């Protein structure tokens, strides 16, 4: 079964945790953002070939800059570009930076917290 624990970390700790997971034989299976009307979180999920899986979760804000883990886990660049385009969270050091053109949506940061969410 899938472990339902989302271990809280700070944005600054994400790279260290990613290194640890890489050294322990995990690979990245997804990164996504989630939000409540008040706050946003970024969730990273790592999986071993035996299917054991762990997730970490960090609190972020629109406009924050998070260090990319694409130099540790190559596929991370796609998730990071996606989160940048849909949620407005910036990533530094991505191995491929689409500069906001991966998703050419009519509304910028369409998934981020809006004023109507807070009402």
């Amino acid at each position, binding site marked *: 079964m899938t472990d339902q624990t989302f271990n809280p970390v700070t944005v600054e700790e994400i790279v260290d945790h990613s290194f640890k997971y890489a050294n322990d034989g995990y690979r*990245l*299976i997804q990164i*996504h953002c989630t939000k409540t009307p008040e706050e946003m979180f970024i969730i990273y999920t790592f999986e071993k*070939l035996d*299917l054991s899986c762990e997730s970490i979760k960090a609190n972020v804000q629109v406009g924050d800059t998070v260090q990319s883990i694409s130099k540790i886990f190559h596929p991370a660049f796609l998730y990071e570009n996606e989160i940048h385009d849909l949620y407005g969270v910036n990533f530094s050091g991505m191995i491929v930076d689409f500069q906001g053109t991966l*998703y*050419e949506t009519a509304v910028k940061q369409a998934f981020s917290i809006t004023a109507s969410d807070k009402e």
Partner: protein
Amino acid sequence: MGERTIIPFGPQHPVLPEPLHLDLILEDEKVVGAVPSIGFVHRGLEKLVEKRDFNEMIYVIERICGICSFIHSQGYAQTIEGLMGVEIPARVKYLRTIWGELSRIHSHLLWLGLMADAYGFESLFMHCWRVREKILDIFEETTGGRVIFSVCKVGGLWKDIDNETLKRIVTVLKDVEKETKKMADVFTRDYTVQKRTRGVGVITYQEAIDLGAVGPTLRGSGVVQDMRTLGYAAYGDLVFEPIVEKDGDCYARTIVRVREISQSFDLIYQAINKIPDGEIDVKVKGNPNGEFLTRLEQPRGQVVYYAKGNGTKYLDRFRVRTPTFANIPPLLKMLPGADLADVPVLALSIDPCISCTER
């Protein structure tokens, strides 16, 4: 070094059924790089979860894709059931497995047809799709729909399949299996098929892991991983091993899918033999609260669902990490060094579903 040219491949291309878009960087006829663009048909379906009752949202989720529609609805239901601690009846687990494996057969037959079309084998393409129609007939008989079924709900199913119909499905599938075996021989032995696929787009074992490949793209490189071994639905009661090939080329990925069709027939027969009688739903009380992550095996590979509830009938978030999204980095690794003429075969070898990717 030849002069560099950039050629757009898609979003509209004769070989692509979906709007995949790659900017191919060429030196003469050789691909030296590829830049993907997605978002061409992005629909923002995940955002819609904030405005739809969680019970109604399943009808949106199953419209993420017309090929793996059922498994998307199953994944959504399973995630919300996990979030709410709902235990579904055993019969539901078996029926979901049967419809899920029928979906895998029809998806792989569709893909095999498209692959045959990509290397110009028109008669094989028509055979694959002709046989696939019989699976769609089973869907129509059991659900009323050929593409979107709307049989799954949070807490169970809207429709049962009676035991007489299940027996008749076995008879139909035995015929389909015979026809599929004839086509499998062509895919495994035909000179044209091998010429176009063997040694093309090789991904090594380690590259498949490092690049995040999933499904037949991962297993075609020798990696033993299949989410069904987690035992969700009725898979924990059925006997099977992940199908693996070792060469890592387009041929290996094709053979994985050919062999998975046979495996799906076997899983359906096992499920029909073991299916218990009983209810097809349970009453779901309250609203989802908390967060839950589920992994399933779609025909194209691992799919990850995440749901976050807030105690109201609207979810804060429903996230779908589709298999095609995970298989884009492996595709970008396969393309450099390939001939332009092989790009359609390479792109199809990951079985891209842009409808899923741009949910």
